[in-house]
């Protein structure tokens, strides 16, 4: 199979993002023989992405709304640099149907699903309805948005407490609240509506049964333009703080392989029903009875995609680029074999002792781990100034091993050789090490409440 001179129909890709994912895309482009263009806000001028890309364009000041979230700036930067395609990474504009639509209108290839698919799946209410229609199990709750408090109260008592109120336009752990006590419903319900309006410009919310001790399991999917879809194993992302992932692994430990298979088939079925194109992630909750429930679809590459890459050998970002170029999937389902186990730890510049608050600052020391079966995706370097403006992800440490116990000891080894320091900078390194030694994690009996449990045990000490 040839890798250069493939008929991509474009030769230059602009990366509408920053940090480690921008580097990741630049690397994929280079291997495919494509030119890469980094865009940057003023604080990212000395970033590794800017250094490694084939070309670079300044797009605005530090605040994301004036740079990485500015559609005109990015479209003009594409024109300025001669890019014909745009990779949005994750976050920022990656799931914005307006951005995808503008790209289409401006003759730029958006590397992701079509705008209408983004709109369809971005609206949780539509997405739930669609997935329910094709047979995916949902948690008891509403597919239609609920606007009236009285109706919400009726539905909640029907579903049974605790319930969770979620913004239709939400995602990534934002815009959702749990209600345990019926007496709190009115207040929390209205608060969530107000937050949703503030965060997403859309006050619509829906209700769902809340599972306090569930596992978060997700399926990686790839779809081409010709109705071919495959799934590439499952990831367990149950180690979360404030519903944001800290540790991800594959395969999900302790789950029945038949259940994973079933989720995989559900995801493929749902992706085809949504007319999906590109890389997607289907998120499920799995309760302690081993039942799975569809939650939402992430219409982009995920932060945690490397664990899937390590067990499948598939370069997911390269696949995104190939699919966007109109190539049919090179993989069929039977060719996707999963080898061993992989774990990712997110090293954030945050202080776990102080409720994971971000700690921006300049790194005086930065020594990432290395060695066999260890991969570190990071944009940091000694002297790097972590801006206060963006999310605090500093590095992803990913390890592979033939089995989970060996992956855990390898991760401990990798974390132990990771040195990061700078005035005022704290990291999640020690906390991650504690996760790798926590008996619940080691025995895979943990659930999404692990981090809260660990945090309260630590403060209790």
């Amino acid at each position, binding site marked *: 199979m040839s890798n250069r001179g493939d008929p991509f129909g474009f030769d230059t890709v602009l990366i509408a993002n920053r940090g480690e994912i921008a580097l990741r895309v630049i690397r994929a482009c280079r291997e495919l023989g494509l030119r890469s263009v980094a865009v940057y806000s*003023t604080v990212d001028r000395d970033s590794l992405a800017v250094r490694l890309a084939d070309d670079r*364009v300044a797009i605005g000041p530090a605040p994301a709304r004036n740079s990485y979230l500015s559609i005109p700036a990015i479209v003009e930067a594409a024109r300025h640099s001669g890019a014909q395609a745009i990779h949005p990474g994750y976050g920022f504009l990656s799931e914005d149907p307006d951005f995808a639509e503008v790209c289409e209108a401006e003759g730029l290839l958006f590397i992701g699903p079509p705008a209408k698919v983004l709109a369809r799946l971005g609206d949780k209410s539509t997405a739930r309805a669609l997935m329910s229609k094709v047979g995916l199990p949902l948690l008891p709750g509403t597919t239609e948005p609920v606007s009236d408090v009285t109706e919400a109260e009726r539905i909640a008592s029907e579903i049974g407490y605790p319930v969770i109120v979620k913004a239709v336009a939400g995602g990534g752990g934002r815009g959702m609240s749990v209600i345990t006590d019926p007496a709190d419903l009115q207040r929390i319900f209205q608060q969530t509506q107000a937050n949703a309006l503030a965060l997403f410009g859309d006050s619509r919310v829906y209700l769902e049964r809340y599972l306090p001790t569930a596992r978060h399991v997700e399926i990686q999917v790839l779809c081409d333009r010709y109705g071919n879809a495959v799934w590439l194993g499952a990831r367990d992302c149950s180690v979360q703080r404030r519903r944001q992932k800290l540790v991800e692994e594959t395969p999900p430990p302790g789950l029945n392989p038949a259940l994973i298979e079933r989720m995989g088939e559900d995801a493929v079925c749902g992706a085809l029903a949504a007319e999906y194109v590109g890389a997607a992630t289907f998120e499920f909750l799995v309760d302690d009875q081993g039942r799975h429930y569809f939650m939402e679809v992430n219409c982009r590459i995920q932060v945690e995609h490397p664990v899937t890459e390590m067990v499948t050998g598939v370069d997911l970002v390269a696949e995104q680029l190939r699919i966007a170029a109109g190539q049919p999937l090179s993989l069929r389902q039977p060719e996707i074999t999963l080898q061993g186990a992989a774990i990712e730890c997110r090293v954030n510049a945050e202080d776990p002792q102080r409720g994971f608050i971000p700690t921006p600052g300049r790194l005086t020391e930065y020594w990432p781990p290395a060695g066999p079966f260890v991969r570190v995706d990071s944009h940091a370097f000694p*002297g790097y100034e972590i801006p206060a403006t963006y999310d605090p992800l500093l590095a992803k440490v990913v390890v592979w091993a033939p089995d989970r116990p060996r992956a855990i000891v390898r991760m401990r080894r990798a974390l132990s050789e990771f040195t990061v320091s700078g005035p*005022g900078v704290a990291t999640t390194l020690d906390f991650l090490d504690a996760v790798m030694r926590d008996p619940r994690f080691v025995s895979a009996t943990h659930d999404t409440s692990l981090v809260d449990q660990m945090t309260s045990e630590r403060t209790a000490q």
Partner: protein
Amino acid sequence: MTEPAGVVSTGGGTTGGAGAVGELLDVVRASTTRLLSSVPLPPQVIRVRAGDVAVELEWPVGGTADSGLTMPGPVAPGSASIASGTQPPALAAAESTDTTETTRYLTASMVGVFYRAPEPGAKPFVEPGDLVVPGQQVAILEAMKLMVPVEADIHARIVEVLVENGQSVEYGQPLFALAPLEAEGE
């Protein structure tokens, strides 16, 4: 004050660490670096002092500064800037006094296409030598069919138009070199 924002910043002396002195030192150091990146010719000596914080650098004769060594940082396109304090109390440093100081740059407020005239074939808004007043339109930036006026922000004389008509510019790229009138008056 024309802050060609986006061009410099990054060094934004956060961190501090050891209290006020640390912060002040950060500011002075950042200012020195900025100054260094803004002067057209590499100097032989730089001294920046604020209160009892001071930074000095000296290079050997002959071995003057080309660029881009120690650490990457792709010589940001269009990185021109201000700075250097004669003896300002703290930060007023961000001003200037001699040769470079008399030139100020009007920079692009967004990525876009630069137009010197209101429409194709029309007379340019301004020409070198023209005097401009704050708020006076001197060019247009176009991004996605949106026309954004570029306006002078000080009393000045246009020294040079730095970008060709119809050329695409980056955020923060210098568009016009201006000679401030206040300076001329001095």
